[in-house]
């Protein structure tokens, strides 16, 4: 019987002949089939994954050296392009869209021997915190089918949680990797803005978007990041900074003592579940006992991060999503129109879901004449304040910790009425996207009602090495 723990162990088992890539793929195809109800996958590439597995097994048998991700079974959020496969952003407007190229991240996974098993459900155009906004139905949390998995990368999180692939790639614009990782009890890593190329990632808000990684272990997250990060001729915003060998780096410096800060306002926030507050407070005591320096600092801007995030991301979305016009790709209305503009309007209103349309409208509003300065420029100024504060914090501390989300996974349908209520689920995660720093959620805690929750760790720009080392260390402290 096939069992997956880490990529390293899997590779050892492959080399010792204890398992094969074909056996692994069969295992996941059966698991996905048995758990269809979770709605984690929009499409499964069973036949071709098996074929690729057979080829990889043959390569190993012929003595070729193993790729870093040889035979690793990966799922892709439905916003990451895979050549000759559909990618729809969980939207009707792209229902039949077939990608004509690979995202850079996809290309690099394949070059190291990964097997892509399917595309995973998410909130439409990555807009949402519960995966209830998919045009293809909600995803269910595998631990409790009445609860949401979080979002927007809900399908990718559940796939790792329920053992429907080894690792997944998602995308994180305001917490869309870390928040579902918290709700599902797994690891969710959002690297520094610009660490991974966004080429072939369907855009939501381009100055926030970053591909993220779901795994069960810190070591696997480090290995994936090492493979997919780095310069790319197809994305001029990606960083040219060299990519450290993260998978080797995490082993070094295991006993390092860190200077860690937490935001007083975050732990005192009235919306925070008291159980989560108490567990995190206890954990801070453990950290201190383990020799780390942990200090409370003020972050007066906490109340402003989510409004800033919504002004800027909706503005960027209204601009980015203007490309869906029914001309070059995607859905086009079947209603015959005399005017070109009417064709655009009907096409877009038929194709986009309500949440997407709301955000486009708000974004158009904050960019429109008469309101641009008061909303859009204002939010960019606040972003500057947040960015300057971030620089100050990391000149004194190695890391900032906080809860990842103020509550555990809520019930499906519970937060459908008020379009603003759901926004508060993002209060601890949007900061990293506003500042462009890396963040991770690691599964450390269980709530008495039975659901898991995580600790969020953030470090300075391009300091994923410290982020991953500290994560590995804290997982031991659990």
């Amino acid at each position: 019987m096939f069992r997956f723990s880490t990529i390293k162990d899997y590779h050892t088992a492959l080399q010792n002949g204890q398992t094969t890539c074909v056996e692994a793929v069969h295992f996941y195809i059966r698991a996905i089939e048995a758990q269809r109800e979770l709605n984690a996958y929009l499409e499964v590439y069973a036949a071709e994954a098996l074929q690729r597995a057979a080829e990889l097994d043959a390569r190993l048998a012929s003595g070729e050296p193993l790729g870093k991700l040889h035979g690793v079974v990966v799922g892709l959020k439905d916003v990451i392009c895979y050549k000759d496969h559909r990618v729809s952003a969980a939207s009707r407007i792209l229902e039949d869209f077939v990608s004509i190229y690979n995202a850079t991240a996809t290309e690099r996974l394949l070059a190291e021997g990964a097997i892509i098993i399917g595309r995973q459900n998410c909130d439409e155009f990555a807009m949402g915190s519960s995966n209830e906004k998919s045009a293809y139905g909600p995803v269910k949390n595998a631990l409790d089918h009445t609860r949401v998995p979080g979002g927007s990368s809900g399908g990718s999180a559940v796939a790792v949680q329920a053992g429907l692939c080894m690792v997944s790639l998602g995308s994180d614009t305001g917490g869309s990797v870390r928040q579902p990782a918290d709700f599902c009890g797994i690891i969710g890593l959002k690297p520094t803005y610009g660490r991974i190329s966004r080429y072939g990632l369907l855009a939501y808000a381009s100055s926030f978007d970053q591909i993220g990684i779901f795994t069960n272990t810190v070591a696997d997250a480090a290995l994936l990041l090492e493979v997919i990060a780095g310069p790319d001729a197809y994305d001029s915003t990606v960083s040219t900074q060299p990519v450290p060998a993260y998978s080797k780096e995490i082993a070094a410096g295991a006993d390092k003592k860190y200077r860690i800060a937490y935001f007083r306002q975050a732990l005192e926030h009235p919306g925070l579940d008291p159980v989560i507050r108490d567990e995190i407070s206890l954990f801070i005591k453990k950290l201190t006992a383990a020799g780390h320096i942990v200090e409370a600092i003020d972050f007066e801007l906490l109340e402003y991060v989510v409004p800033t995030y919504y002004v800027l991301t909706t503005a960027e979305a209204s601009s980015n999503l203007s490309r869906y016009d029914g001309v070059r790709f995607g859905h086009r209305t079947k209603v015959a129109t005399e005017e070109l503009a009417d064709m655009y309007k009907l096409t877009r209103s038929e194709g986009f879901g309500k949440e997407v349309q709301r955000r486009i409208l708000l974004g158009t509003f904050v960019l429109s004449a008469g309101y641009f300065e008061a909303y859009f420029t204002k939010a960019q100024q606040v972003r500057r304040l947040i960015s300057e504060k971030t620089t100050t914090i990391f000149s004194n501390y190695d890391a900032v910790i906080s809860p990842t989300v103020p509550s555990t996974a809520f019930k499906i349908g519970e937060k459908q009425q008020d379009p603003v209520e759901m926004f508060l689920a993002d209060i601890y995660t949007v900061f990293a996207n506003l500042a462009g720093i890396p963040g991770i959620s690691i599964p450390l805690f269980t709530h008495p009602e039975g659901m898991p929750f995580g600790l969020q760790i953030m470090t300075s720009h391009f300091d994923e090495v410290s982020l991953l080392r500290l994560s590995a260390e804290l997982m031991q402290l659990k």
Partner: protein
Amino acid sequence: MEIASGTVAYLANLSRLHFNEDEQAVITDELQQMLAFVEKLQELDTTGVEPLMHMGDAVNVLREDKVAGSVTRAEALKNAPVHDEQFFKVPKVIRK
């Protein structure tokens, strides 16, 4: 800020979206709630603060001017809902 009647219709036109009257009423309410939420930013004094427009310190990277990274016409037309052998097709835009 109160959303004036007609604002949603104006924004819908700019956004190239279409809402019927019932939908307009609902979306006016929702937009009102979202605006009330982001209104909070007005509390902060940002006098003299330079707006942050670009993330990171990446600068434009230039390459040699040679043909690369293109798609074929057939590929470019592959996902178009209405097209012929060479062109994307749209409703008539020039009239007599």
